């Protein structure tokens, strides 16, 4: 008996050593995610379950939206084809687990960048593709035109697992108003419940309110109140631990924004190759070796601009032309008075 225990322990020791080697070998490889993506032939992207303007599927299953365009840009950069993306619709609750568990490689799902999410749960935010803030929607016939008219006992519909839930509490507490939070897992149910009259107000990011308003029975019966109660910088997220992949996603987004800054769009990108401006030439790949830093070819940024377009084109196509938020507000290039200011791609 004793002999067997001894054998058992030595066997266990051997296995333990084997596992350690295997894990070290894995860590040594650079950007496992890029390698896997190229091997699979598509980018695995987590999006919302349907938020017009950000990530929304049409009847044929084609995804559109500014969040979708980030994933398409990455696909154009690393695979050469913006359509090689596999979209996974996720609820607010599932999104981070799906990313950390490796089910998806990019989470581009109107997700707010906060300290605790960035530092605590194994995620890295790579940038901001939409500056937003939380607001309230009410029925027009209520006569409410400002949050200062909210009274005790108001019921507020929202999503679970979002910063919205926390901001809402901060807001109502600071105003000393008692409220009834009614939190659903899916956005569609929130809309249905608010629309039926279950709640007096619907609260989420203002862009979300504008987008969801289009889904109501009578969109004109509802208004979004002017107050913004929080900062919600929304952006794409990747897993911690793959710095190269993180850079690829970050700079794919940055290229879209910088391209707009320099006036490069999907129509004129090819002509810009012969531009006088060295920064424009770098962005369309006719100068410098920018792609090499990620292990990509030099046309990666040109493909993004040609296939997906610059940020302005994406915004116009998805958010302005669909009537969700025609005014770009803070989501304008810094040179035109907005907040979009990205480090130079050089």
């Amino acid at each position, binding site marked *: 008996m004793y002999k067997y225990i001894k054998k058992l322990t030595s066997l266990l020791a051997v296995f333990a050593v084997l596992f350690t080697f295997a894990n070290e070998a894995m860590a040594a490889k650079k950007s496992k995610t890029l390698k896997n993506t190229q091997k699979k032939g598509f980018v695995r992207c987590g999006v919302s379950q349907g938020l017009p303007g950000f990530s929304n599927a049409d009847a044929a299953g084609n995804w559109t939206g500014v969040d979708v365009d980030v994933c398409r840009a990455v696909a154009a950069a690393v695979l050469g084809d913006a359509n090689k993306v596999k979209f996974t619709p996720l609820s607010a609750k599932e999104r981070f687990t799906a990313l950390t568990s490796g089910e998806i490689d990019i989470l581009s799902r109107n997700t707010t960048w906060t300290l605790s999410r960035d530092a605590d749960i194994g995620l890295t935010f790579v940038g901001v593709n939409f500056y937003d803030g939380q607001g309230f929607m009410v029925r027009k016939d209520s006569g409410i035109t400002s949050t200062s008219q909210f009274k005790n006992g108001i019921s507020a519909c929202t999503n679970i697992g979002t910063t919205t839930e926390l901001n809402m509490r901060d807001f109502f507490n600071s105003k000393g108003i008692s409220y009834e*939070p009614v939190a*659903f897992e*899916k956005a569609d149910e929130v809309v249905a419940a608010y629309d*039926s*009259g*279950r709640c*007096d107000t619907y609260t989420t990011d203002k862009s979300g309110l504008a987008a969801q308003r289009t889904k109501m029975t009578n969109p004109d019966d509802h208004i979004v109140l002017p107050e913004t109660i929080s900062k919600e910088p929304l952006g794409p997220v990747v*897993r911690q631990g793959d710095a190269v992949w993180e850079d690829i996603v970050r700079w794919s987004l940055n290229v879209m924004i910088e391209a707009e800054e320099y006036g490069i769009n999907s129509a004129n990108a090819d002509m810009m190759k012969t531009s006088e401006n060295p920064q424009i030439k770098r962005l369309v790949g006719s100068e410098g070796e920018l792609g090499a830093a990620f292990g990509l070819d030099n046309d990666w940024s040109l493909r993004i601009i040609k296939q997906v377009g610059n940020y302005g084109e994406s915004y116009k196509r998805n958010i302005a032309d669909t009537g969700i938020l025609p005014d770009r507000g803070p989501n304008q290039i810094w040179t035109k008075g907005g907040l979009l200011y990205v480090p130079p791609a050089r």
Partner: protein
Amino acid sequence: MKLKKILPQLLTLLFIVLIFGFFTMNAQENMDTRGIEFGFGFLTQEASFDIQFSLIDYDGSHSYARAYLVGLLNTLLVAFIGIILATLLGLIVGVARLSPNYLIRKTASFYIEFFRNVPLLLQIFFWYFAALRALPMPQDATLLLGSSFMTIKGLYTPAPIWTNFDIFFTTLIVAMILIFFFVKFAKKKQEQEGKQLPVLIISLAIFIGLPLLTFLVGGVDLSFSFPELRKMSQSSYTFDGGMGIPPELIALTLALTLYTATFIAENVRAGIQGIGKGQKEAAASIGLTPSQVLKLVIMPQALRIIIPPTTNQYLNLTKNSSLAAAIAYPDLVLVFAGTAMMQTGKAIEIVGITMATYLTISIAISLLMNWYNQRIAIKEK
């Protein structure tokens, strides 16, 4: 020879240890590279989110552990109400299914066939959203039973306001203990002298009379606060005072009850039909009345057939209550495995705790039902 016996066991053990070790190491490794720390320290942190409906005192300044408790109690509440209502309804429908009356029999079987063949989640959505659409806004609500309002924002009923509730409650327990001993005494008396005491009437008298007495002499008092309509804005109203039961709880309980009762009804029917016809005839031939036949001969035997599969239905109902997340009823899954998991990012810990909790609840129900089943089993003499 001894070795041959031990070796397979050892190999199995080794296999399990290795599998478990592999998963642990794998999780550890992945969490390390992503900078996630494992630990239960978050439970004492401030939750900072509010919950719509709570049986205990709670707001966002309480801890995550407290939020867990709120979710757990909400789950237990739905399971408890659901089990009781489903059992009652199941019993009635099960007996009705065997009724000699054609209309009753067919109605019962139509109900069973319909409700057990539609997916539960769909039924929950149906009751919730259909009811929401159909119910009036608070200002249009009509009075129910003189003092309650059924509205889209919930059922508002008068809330009891007690003085000296503890005295009343203690008396209630004393009354129950008294009844327990009285029933035992009556049974003994019947066995010894063959004399039947009016057990039900005397028990009821104790149960109602004793607590009532506290109102007269114990200083116990009960008054009600009635819901009152209040205007919040030009078009929205709410109720002040009274007790508000959220529509989410009502819809969920309704759906779970109607769904599970169909299965229980079938168990009841099977149990009754499983008793030989001769039993019934023999009982009738010795002069027992039809209700006595059911109570003294059929049911005690039928229960043995009914209990084990019904235990499964109780477990199903409890676990199915986790579908609450779909319609915003703040149960354990929505509050703890939903919001709390999102805010803390402690997926492994929280899913682990939630699984362990459901396991504990299920095992507790199982043990209770097994104990009851053994108690009513045939005792070989």
